[in-house]
């Protein structure tokens, strides 16, 4: 019994260690000045696992790179924007997670967080059936969500098996 429990814990911890956001490029509306950008920078850096943050005021793009093994959740990035009085739009994400569901209705489980996304392809003709049950790296777009919410759908551009 102990062996089974230990095996389960090991499996979960292994998944957690390999599931994470690697990069988040978030478009933010409403930042007019340098202190706005600085406030976003400070807030994003306060999220555990964030390595670098770059804010482009003229495009509204906030580029976040994260350290391996982080457990940051998408909701934290959105909150960092909202608490400064701005609005988050679409986010380009590079995220690692476990592919579940079926070929017709695949899901990405970002283990280590509560984030779970229904995957829909940006372009038709992409087949994920061969990746089901595997740890994958997905490059996709999270559509804009309401305040305090995270989109449940990730529109993926590509999904590859994680090395």
């Amino acid at each position, binding site marked *: 019994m102990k062996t089974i429990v230990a095996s389960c814990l090991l499996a979960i911890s292994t998944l957690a260690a390999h599931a994470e956001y690697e990069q988040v490029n978030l*478009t*933010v*509306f*409403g*930042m*007019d*000045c*340098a*202190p*706005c*950008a*600085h*406030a976003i*920078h*400070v*807030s994003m*850096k*306060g*999220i*555990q696992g964030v390595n670098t943050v770059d*804010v*482009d*005021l*003229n*495009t*509204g793009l906030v580029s976040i790179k994260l350290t391996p093994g982080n*457990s*940051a*959740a998408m*909701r*934290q990035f959105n*909150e*960092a924007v*909202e*608490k*400064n*009085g*701005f*609005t988050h739009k679409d986010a380009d994400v590079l995220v690692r997670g476990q592919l579940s569901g079926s070929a017709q209705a695949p899901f990405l489980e970002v283990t280590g*967080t*509560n984030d779970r996304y229904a995957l829909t392809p940006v372009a038709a003709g992409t087949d994920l059936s061969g990746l089901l049950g595997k740890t994958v790296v997905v490059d996709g777009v999270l559509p804009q969500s309401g305040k305090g919410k995270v989109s449940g759908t990730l529109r993926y551009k590509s999904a590859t098996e994680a090395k």
Partner: protein
Amino acid sequence: MKYRMVFACAVFATGTAFAADHGPVFSYATPVNSERELSFDTGIFGRNGSRGTQLSTGSGFGYGVTPHLTVNVFLPASFGSGDLPESRMMSGGEWSTGASWRFLHSVTSVGKRIESTASLGLVVPGPQQDSGVLGSLHRAPGVAGTVATGLASRSQYLWFGGGYTRFAEAAKDRRPDTLSWSAVYGYRPSRLRRGYDQWDYRGFAELTGEHTGAVRSGGVILPDSSSTSVWLGPSVLAIFKDVAIEGGVQAPLFRDASESVYGRERIRFAINLSYLKYSSHTSSH
């Protein structure tokens, strides 16, 4: 009873809607602190007239309770005397506390937003006595309310605002009610629309106006004690990350004030320094 009403109003919240750390130095504007942001302002505000120069300095603190609600307190000290009319646009010797609520916040595109902010607060006499006509009055607290609305963007700013302050009566004396208003246009040249790790500059043209009612002393309205004035002048704001410095000067466009009571006010100027402490706090998931 009047005092109780004044304090009750103050519980709900500010004084002035000045946003020196993000906006113009003389006028009303809409910016408020972000959630958990602590701001500290200090500066010198001056009014020069035919009877001397009146200076005010002090410390202002603001704290963002939510992204759209900031509580603040301003504790000035004045020195010099100009025998000048009451003013709520220029800092005087009154202490104030209250809150600013950004009740409209419309984010329309990258770098642009339209917003409106209302403030309500309590104004209490500071430890220093005023000079001139106002200096002889028994002083009582007052309530100040302001509203500002406008546009902020990467290139241009435009804000309109108005405020009203009413003081309670003390020993049959009463400071004048004050109605104030402002319009401000700001511009950031294209070559200064750069990264946040560099100094951020913008210039403003600030138009402000005030009408102060009559002064009541011993239950009697003092003749010729009301005043109206309109002021115009430039200001420049420079910010680097969490530090801001701003300065401006205004000259009168219109004055209707008794020179025998107040002298002749010639110029207003301000220098303000701000420190903005942003919060890195985030919730865990």
